[in-house]
């Protein structure tokens, strides 16, 4: 009875919010959970659920998985696409979307790390992807090893097959003692070594603040045979011997053949096949996201006893992926100009985006937006953890800074070596004007890259919908 009431209340709330032209991505679920705290368990029964968690790439990876499964024309996908990834958002997704045929429906749920620990038992997913673990909003989540332990506790509340990043020591360690349910994705070790030797990366004055430098078991510094980026790589602990377990789904790539602004051509290999993938969403980190998605879709098809070549189908499906909300969306503007928004929420995300923009040949202007609301993390000092210094020589000449904390970002950019005269800035209420100026000053054929954090992206996005007539994200 409570359950019915909870579902009913959620539907009414959603209907009301939609009438008011609001997104309604979390409130219905919040109300349902208030009425029946067990609502997620009841709703998850008999459903094929995939969860995607980790500090970076959750949205992109879930989005890829969803688009890939949809493109198979075999299953219906229900997901929480707009980043509503707490229990309330997930409850909303489960209540407010009616599947046509439950046995042909796959739920792809992006799940916040702490929320995963709480609801992984209720959801009973069939597959759980863990993308990576980088320092995130430490004022909200605390230490990274704690986040890892949260995810581990969630994993132990169900029997899902777990799809883990083999190059991230913290994530790979989740496979220890859970070997029979672990599937790994990561860079091919040979490719990693080849790229390290062929294209050594630039150096800044000070190394970026890094995570997971020491083995948590025996407190010895990890050694690396090769690296992909940050703490991801072919690591091993000289004391206890814990090492990169090797990937079941391997990315074979060559940095030279994969110009970052044109998308990547690379290969994904499994136990006996090697297939070419062409990815429209650029950036090295998206190789990992793609590989995770391919691994996940393939494992899903296996569980579903898909009658055809499941690996080949998963690879084929990856070519259908388009960018997700706020992630590498390229918007075409008059005058052959483009606008590309790259959401950056934490140091690893900002590091990857800066690296990408510094290599993109069409980058003619760069805009930063920094807020410090609760959803962003109230402490803005994370921007100092990022190694701007090694990338600054490749950044566009014109740099624009806005957001409620533009002062902090202004100083960060300036201290990295960008002269005062190259930086224009304005408060958040003038962000759209500043962006228009950036577009005006951008040369024809060029792209204005915008790097906002979470609430500044929502704010800017809302304003752009009105000002530039760009379609909003929720349908």
């Amino acid at each position: 009875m409570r359950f019915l009431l909870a579902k009913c209340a959620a539907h009414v709330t959603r209907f009301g919010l939609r009438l008011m032209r609001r997104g309604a991505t979390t409130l219905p679920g919040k109300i349902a959970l208030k009425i029946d705290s067990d609502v997620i368990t009841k709703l998850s029964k008999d459903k094929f659920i995939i969860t995607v968690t980790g500090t970076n790439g959750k949205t992109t990876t879930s989005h890829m998985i969803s688009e890939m499964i949809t493109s198979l024309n075999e299953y219906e996908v229900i997901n929480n696409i707009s980043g509503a990834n707490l229990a309330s958002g997930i409850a909303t997704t489960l209540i407010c979307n009616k599947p046509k045929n439950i046995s042909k429906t796959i739920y792809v749920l992006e799940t916040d790390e702490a929320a995963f620990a709480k609801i992984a038992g209720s959801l009973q997913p069939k597959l759980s992807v863990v993308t990576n673990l980088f320092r995130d909003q430490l004022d909200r989540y605390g230490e990274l090893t704690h986040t890892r332990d949260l995810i581990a506790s969630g994993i132990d509340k169900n029997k899902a097959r777990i799809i883990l990043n083999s190059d991230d020591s913290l994530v790979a360690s989740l496979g220890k003692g859970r070997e029979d349910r672990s599937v790994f994705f990561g860079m091919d070790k040979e490719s990693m070594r080849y790229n390290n030797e062929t294209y050594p990366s630039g150096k800044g004055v000070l190394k970026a603040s890094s995570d997971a430098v020491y083995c948590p078991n025996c407190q010895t510094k990890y050694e690396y045979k090769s690296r992909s980026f940050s703490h991801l790589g072919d690591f091993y602990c000289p004391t206890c011997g814990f090492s990169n377990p090797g990937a079941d789904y391997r990315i074979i790539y060559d940095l030279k053949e994969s110009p970052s602004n044109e998308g990547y051509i690379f290969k994904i290999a499994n136990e006996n096949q090697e297939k070419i993938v062409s990815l429209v969403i650029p950036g090295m980190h998206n190789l990992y996201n793609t590989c995770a998605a391919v691994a996940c879709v393939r494992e899903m098809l296996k569980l579903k006893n898909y009658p055809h070549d499941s690996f080949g189908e998963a690879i084929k499906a990856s070519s259908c992926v388009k960018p997700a909300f706020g992630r590498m969306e390229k918007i075409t503007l008059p005058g052959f100009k483009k606008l590309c928004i790259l959401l950056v929420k934490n140091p690893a995300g900002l590091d990857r985006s800066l690296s990408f923009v510094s290599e993109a040949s069409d980058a003619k202007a760069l805009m930063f937006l920094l807020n410090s609301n609760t959803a962003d993390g109230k402490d803005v000092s994370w921007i100092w953890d990022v190694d701007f210094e090694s990338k600054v020589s490749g950044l566009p000449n014109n740099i624009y800074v806005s957001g409620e904390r533009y002062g902090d970002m202004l100083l960060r950019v300036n201290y990295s070596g960008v002269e005062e005269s190259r930086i224009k800035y304005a408060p958040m209420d003038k962000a759209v004007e500043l962006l228009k100026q950036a577009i005006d000053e951008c040369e024809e054929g060029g792209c204005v890259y915008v790097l906002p954090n979470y609430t500044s992206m929502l704010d800017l996005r809302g304003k752009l919908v009105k000002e530039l007539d760009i379609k909003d994200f929720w349908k």
Partner: protein
Amino acid sequence: MSEIKLTIGHFYPDLLNLYGDRGNVLALYTRAKRRGIDVEIKEISIGDELNPADIDIAFIGGGQDNEQNILKDDFVKVKGPIIKDMIESGKVFLCICGGYQMLGKYYLEHDGNKLDCLGAIDVYTEAKKERFIQDTIYEVELTSGQVVKAVGFENHSGRTYLGSSVKPFMKVVRGAGNNGEDGYEGAHYKNTFCTYSHGSFLPKNPLITDMLLSLALKQKYGDTYELPVLSTKFEDIAKEQAMTYLDTKEA
């Protein structure tokens, strides 16, 4: 001016690197470099040799519990005696959060377990459940006698209490400070400055950056050394905004 040289000793950068602590090192580096000073950053981690003569300013940041446990032996037993001597002889130190706590006498955990620390300065810390996490404003008297406002962000569950031989570094205008009780923030002993204020502390407080640079260079090149004048334009914008941001969000 190129004959002026400054070396910043960055302690345990691979372990103590929370909340943008490296921004403080970058601030020292940048404001020295812009004055034409030849700056070098020297990383000193576990197993690395520590030679006091090589370092003009020492920086120790904060780390996660796990990371701090890893370096404890190297810090207290191996480098500890040398660090104590450096502090006593007036070497310039800036220590933040975990670095601050570890310089003190001990750290009393929630469960009553007492962790011995270096005892280089007369302070001790007790852990409490409630964390202080917020934007902060302080008032600080610089060594020049000038009194200025400073801004920061605190994020700590430790409550630190000062003994009679150390002075507080700053007065709390907004925030909790050392312990949420006495209205003071950080500790100042000889040329050692400690604070709970993380990350962008020095970037937004250029006069404190300059004070540390000046102390270190006077020590090296004599009291007649004068730090060249340098603009604080962007630093002031960031600081001003940090102060008013609090008001707009509270309103």
